[in-house]
Structure formats: C-alpha cells, structure tokens
C-alpha cells in the first residue's frame, strides 16, 4: 500500500493532538483559582484556541479556493474550496463545542447570542456546514461551484470581523491570547502547550487538505469515467 504525504501529516497531526491533550491535563500549570469561576475547565483552552486557529487557516484556504474557482475557473481552486470547507467545518465544530463546554462551566451558559465573536465564529462554522451539506445535495457543475464559491468569498468577510471582535466589542468572550495586548500574555509552560496544540492542528489540517484534494481528484475521475460509460 502506498502511503501518501497527506496520510503521514494526518498521523503526525493526530499524534501531536494526543500529546497536547496529555500535556494539557497532566503537565500544564493550573490557573489562579481566584481568577476563574471554574479554573479546571480552563484546560479546554489548550484544545479550543488551536482548533479556532486551525479553523481560520481552513477558512483562508476556502477563500483562496473560492477566489481561484470564481475568477480563474481553476480546478485546483475548487479542490481547495472543498478541502477548506471540510477542514473549516471540522475545526470550527471542535472550537465551538469546546467553547460551549467551557462557557457552560465558566459563564453558566454555553452560548451568548449577543456576543459578537461567538456569533460571527458560529456563523463561519454554519457556513462551512452549509457548503459541505449543500455541495452533497447538488450535482457537480459550474452552477453549483459558482454558487458555493460565492458564499465562500462572502463568508471570508467574517474572518477579520471575528478576529477583531474581541478587541472592539468585548462582551463575554476573553480577549486574544495570540498577538494580544500585554495583559493577555500567558506563562511559558502554558504557551508551550498552546504552541504544540496549534502546530499539531496546523499539521493535521494540512494533511486533511492534501488528502481531501486527492479524494476530490478521484471523485472527479470516477465521474468522468461514468460519463464516458454513458456515452456523453
């Protein structure tokens, strides 16, 4: 069996995630118990932040792919669109789910419908879900590719809004821990676990994107062969 580079990256990313979980629960220092309602739940942050980081990378890939398809009719662009939406959905759901668990423990509510960051990030994840489910509901063609890549392009407008939301409209969601102000800095050990998590997620989604591109290529080949059999 031929092992592809995408598979290797997927396995490496997955191993890194396991290491991140181990370190987060067993090695990372505890936070000040007076600073949080539920200090132990804060360890979710080592999963939540890297997942959100990876989701943003996936959404950037989605945007790039959408633009390449929409403006250049690039087949690679469509493959990136497919891979970016799938990776964005997976990482977005992980970030939203872990955030809800932490929110329930810390705020007493899993979701705040009036928090800008939660809502814009939630919408990005819903957009990825729409793109994945919607694509499966339609025959592949230029009509569906154009429509879904338009949504991919519009959706990317939410990425900078989501990123700056915690700086401008701080409601419930904590401020940024990466590239934030002086108050947001975290201790060395915490930063190390966070970096391992972010790196693992990044490797994982790069592996996923490479594998997804391969799968899309196979699907298109099967479709082409099917049409040849139909005599089209």
């Amino acid at each position: 069996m031929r092992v592809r580079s995408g598979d290797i990256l997927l396995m490496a990313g997955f191993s890194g995630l396991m290491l991140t979980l181990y370190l987060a629960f067993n090695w990372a220092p505890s936070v000040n118990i007076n600073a949080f309602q539920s200090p132990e739940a804060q360890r979710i942050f080592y999963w939540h932040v890297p997942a959100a980081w990876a989701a943003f990378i996936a959404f950037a890939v989605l945007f790039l792919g959408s633009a390449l398809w929409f403006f250049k009719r690039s087949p690679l662009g469509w493959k990136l669109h497919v891979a970016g939406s799938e990776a964005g959905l997976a990482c977005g759901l992980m970030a939203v789910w872990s955030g809800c668990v932490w929110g329930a423990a810390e705020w007493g509510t899993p979701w705040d419908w009036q928090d800008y960051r939660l809502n814009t990030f939630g919408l990005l994840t819903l957009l990825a879900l729409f793109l994945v489910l919607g694509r499966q509901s339609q025959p592949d063609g230029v009509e569906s590719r154009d429509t879904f890549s338009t949504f991919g392009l519009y959706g990317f407008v939410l990425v900078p809004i989501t990123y700056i939301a915690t700086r401008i409209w701080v409601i419930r969601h904590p401020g940024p821990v990466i590239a934030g102000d002086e108050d947001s800095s975290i201790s060395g050990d915490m930063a190390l676990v966070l970096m391992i998590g972010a790196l693992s997620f990044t490797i994982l989604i790069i592996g996923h994107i490479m594998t997804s591109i391969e799968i899309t290529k196979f699907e298109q080949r099967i479709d082409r062969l099917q049409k040849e059999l139909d005599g089209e």
Partner: protein
Amino acid sequence: MADPILELDKVTVRRGMGIVLQDFSLQIKSGECIILHGKNGAGKSTIIETAARLLPMESGAVFHHGSLVCDGQGRRLNPKKSFGLTLQSNCLVASQTVEQHLTNVMDLCAKSIDLKPILSAFNIANRRNDKIAHLSGGQQRKVAVIAGLIPAMIEQQPRLVVLDEPDSGLDDSAIKVLVQTIHELRNIGHCFMIATHDSRLFECGTSLNDLRSEKTQEVSNDARWEAEPESKSPTFLKTKIGWKYNSSTLVSVQRNWLAALLVMGGLLSIVDPLTLSDETVILMGFTLAPAFTLGLVGDAVFKILNEQRSIDWWRAQYNQVPNSYVESFISGLILTTISSQIFIQSVDYRIIIIGGLIALTTTACVRFLQLSTIRLARSNAVFIRLLTPILILPWGIIVDYCAKL
C-alpha cells in the same frame, strides 16, 4: 437595414461541467422567425434561456432591441421592452385563475386586450375563470403558450417572443391555431425564436437552425394579427401581484402566521408573563419573537413562485420578482400588537412598528438567501437556512434596545 430585435454576440455558456455554447452568435430581426431544431442536448434550451437572461455566461453578451440585457461580466439589466416567453416548464401559479394569470402578463406590458377570441381559438374559453390547478396538462400548456404570445398580441411595435417547445402536450387543433397565430404576429413585425422537434411548426420559420447550419425558407402565409389594445398604467406592479398571489392561496397564513402563533403559544405554555414583570428584556424578547419567527419562515410569494418554476419566468422579465413585503410588515404589526398585550400588558406604537420592521427585514434577508441559490439544479434541497441564525444577533440587540424604551 433594420436593427436586430434579439442579438446573441459570441456567447459561451457552461452547463454542468461542459461547455454547451461556444462563441455562439445569432441575430433576429423584425418579421423573422428562427426555428431551433437540433437533437436533444444540442443546446436549444440553453440558447432560449440565455436569450431570456436566465443563464449566466462565461463570455459574450445578449441585446434586446439594441440594449444590453446581460453579459459575461455578470451584468443583468432589465429589458426596456417586454418580451414573450414560454419555457419548457409552464411557469404558472396553480392557485390563480386562467384570466388572473393572463391579466398579470398584460399588466407587465401596460396594455390589455379582450382575451375571449384567443381563449376561444385555443378552446379554453370555458375554463377562463377556473384555477390553473384544475386544468389538464395540455390545457395548462395552452395557458403558458398564450402567456408567451401576449406581449406580441398587445403591441403594435415589434416585440421578441421566445418559445421553448410550445407544442409539448398540445393537441392537433391547438398546434394549428399556434402556427396560424405565429404567422399573423410575425406578419405585423414581431420576431420569434422557437425551439421545437415538431415539424408542423417548421412552416412558421423564416429560417431553420439545427445549431450547426441555418437554412432560410420562404413563408407564404400573409395573414395579419388584428387586435385593439387599451393602455393601462399599473403602479407598484410587483407588490400588487405578490399581494394577489398571497391572497389567493393564503400561504402566508398557512406558513408564517401559523409558525408565529405556535411560538407565541409555546412561550405562554412555559411561563406566566405576570410572574416576569421585572424581567423587561425577557418579556420584550417574547413580545418580538412572533414577528421574528414570521420573517424566518420566509417569503410566502417566493414559495408560491417556486412551485412550477414561475420564478424563472419572472426573473427573465424583471430583476426583482413579486414579493410579500407588505404582508410581512402588516403581519408583523398585528402579531406584535397581540404579543404586546399578552406579554407586557400595554401597547406602545414604537414597539409595534419595530415588530413590523423586524418581520419585514427578516423576510427580506431570508428571501435574499433563497434567491442566491435559485440557480442550483436542486435549489430546494440546499441547506441555505443554516445561515439564518446570524439574524439572532441583530434581533437580540433590538430586543435590548426596546427593553430600554
């Protein structure tokens, strides 16, 4: 030499993953009738739908009466003059009567004629006041064909008429009437583009085009169409037609009102508003929830138009199709008045107007999302409503604002 009424200039169109038309050009002038008769899948319907502005192009441009109506850059401009259109699907609204439907078409042309002669010729005069849903398939096709011919029937100046397989489902006598009517209309200067496999319609054509070559032919019939149209100047046409569609089906009552009342009832079943007198934000949320729900269900007229794809017919004629904005606003006002009485035991005109506006803007947003996927092969199957939760945030902000009033 006369200017063309319809011009397709180096049009390239993709459908599915293939290119159906590549740098295709065609001109139709006053008094001409082009019959497209290529084999299945050759691109006849693609040409018809491109000429009717329904398909986006990779490149090229389409002109009606010398004015650009759409091009490969994505521009899509309303035609300055109405044109006749019959698509492969009938594009009818089942709850309308035959007369109501044809009157709507005449309203679009801002003129009217006596419908009796043409309905009699097609042998459906006795079904004039029947709902389209009660007609047979062939009779429905006759109504769709007549609707396509009306813009030419009521205009003295040359008009474009585009018919996609008009013969489908018609009996022999109806085909004869159709052929004769096309002759008469063409002889007074109107031009036609017809896609068909039926050789009986070939005699109408001044040229026969199988999409590879074109053959011109002489047409001997010189009968002329005669009618006495009257001018009328309808205003707020699309809103009025939307209102008519809605009132004839009561779809907004079935869908939007029912959902809003269920939400109101559900909220009342779990909480007694009198016990929440200090919780102004929660009570205001309950008060404005029915109007929001009404909007989230979507535009009732969009639902009606989507049933037999009559939305395509409207999109070809105008960039903006009929809507139910007025009904949504009024429904929002009424529902918020009721919920104000129930939840906050008072009626504040500002809250009621905000309720109406919430219903209106939510309906418009949902409709925008639905329209953006209309081009898809299975637009009803796409999960576009997954994006509607974004509307909760602005609704929550408005609730907060209203609680402070």
